[in-house]
């Protein structure tokens, strides 16, 4: 069986309060914050991009794993803000991590679930015995169009996971995985366009909820699980409201969901989102606990996993920079600074 060997996350230092955005556009901040259930989002430094953040997260994962970066045999980099349209982020990352040359590599795009798709690809390589250790990175400097609804939630961060099939190194076994896919045009970005487009309320019921809930149900049936079997649940977090609604519909409690809700404090960092929620849970989980996980990517699809933590988790937790600590390490910036740092002016 394969599982998670280590993880690393990176949250940039800067935060923009939603009230700053609302003030710019003359909107009622309280109404927006209540509706979206978040109050601030993470903004990248002027010179940060998906690759630089991915490298930070990747280095942290390698440090936790206690392996040499040359032991990594695959790199899958998922993002919707790859620095290049053509030129692999995965090998830039591989080079700066010092992985060497003998590894499988590709860049993935599937909106916010590019990295979890990468995990499924990696598991294929692991379970077939092709490799022993593989790295998956989800990283985004999500671009929100000024004055658009998504401006309040589009954020930046990176999550990196090392998966492996060596029992002694695994901190969370992957008991089960599946995926639910369709052609549902809820949110898209045309080639050459700077900002994505979306179809308002269509992104809710027929998009996010259909896929997340159906994949969740498939997972529960496939594994013969019920919600109460799990200590924690993690869902993709486009805002603070959707994962709470999904959890409730599936019969999960607030306590099971709460530790994963990084969105409340940093917004939605797209490909890093659900994996950072998972990291936040792994930061505090105990051994032999089951974690229910469903991601979502617009266009659309959901990747589901059931994780079970091992004794090894306790040892490796000591080697991490907890997600919560990074969330609290922040500098607030103004709206105009945000425009500068995200290259809108």
């Amino acid at each position: 069986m394969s599982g998670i060997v280590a993880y690393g996350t990176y949250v940039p230092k800067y935060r923009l309060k939603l009230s700053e955005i609302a003030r710019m556009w003359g909107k009622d901040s309280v109404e927006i914050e209540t509706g979206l259930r978040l109050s601030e989002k993470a903004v990248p430094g002027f010179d940060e991009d998906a690759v630089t953040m991915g490298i930070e997260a990747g280095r942290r994962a390698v440090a936790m794993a206690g392996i040499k970066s040359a032991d990594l045999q695959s790199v899958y980099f998922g993002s919707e803000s790859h620095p290049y349209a053509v030129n692999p982020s995965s090998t830039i990352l591989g080079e700066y991590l010092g992985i060497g040359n003998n590894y499988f590599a590709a860049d993935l795009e599937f909106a916010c679930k590019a990295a979890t798709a990468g995990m499924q690809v990696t598991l294929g390589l692991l379970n077939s015995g092709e490799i022993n250790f593989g790295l998956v990175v989800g990283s985004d400097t999500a671009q929100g169009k000024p004055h658009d609804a998504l401006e309040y939630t589009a954020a930046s961060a990176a999550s990196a996971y090392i998966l492996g099939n060596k029992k002694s190194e695994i901190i969370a076994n992957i008991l089960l995985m599946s995926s639910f896919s369709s052609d549902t045009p809820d949110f898209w970005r045309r080639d050459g366009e700077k900002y994505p487009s979306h179809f308002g309320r269509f992104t809710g019921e027929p998009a996010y909820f259909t896929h997340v809930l159906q994949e969740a149900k498939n997972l529960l049936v496939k594994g013969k699980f019920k919600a109460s079997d799990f200590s924690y649940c993690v869902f993709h977090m486009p805002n603070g409201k959707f994962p709470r609604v999904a959890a409730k519909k599936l019969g999960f409690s607030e306590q099971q969901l709460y530790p994963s809700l990084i969105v409340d404090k940093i917004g939605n960092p797209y490909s890093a989102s659900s994996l950072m929620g998972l990291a936040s849970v792994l930061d505090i989980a105990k051994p032999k606990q089951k974690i229910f996980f469903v991601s979502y990517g617009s266009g659309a699809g959901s990747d589901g996993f059931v994780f079970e933590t091992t004794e090894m988790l306790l040892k490796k937790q000591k080697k991490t920079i907890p997600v919560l600590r990074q969330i609290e390490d922040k500098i607030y910036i103004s709206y105009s600074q945000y425009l500068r740092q995200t290259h809108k002016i």
Partner: protein
Amino acid sequence: MITSPVKLWRRHKNVSAQIGKKGKILLWTIIRVPAKSFTDQAPYPVVIVKMQNGENMIGQLVDWQEKDLVSGCEVVSVLRRLRTEDKEDIIYYNIKFKPL
């Protein structure tokens, strides 16, 4: 400033070995009249850092606040984009320093 893709490629090993190293600020200044490729980043601090291995390095300071601009401030080296390049240029990654 020469930012040839060949140079970027040739420097991989050196640069990657320098990521994540700690040091202390020896001297700092704030560049207010920037060089050509750095115009949209100005004003920005440039620091000379004494690394833990005894060597000195020079670099831009990022994610900084006023209180970090002091001799003795602990920093760590990070990889960042060098500057805002032209639309068709290669993206150049370089070592910069971040206060701990």
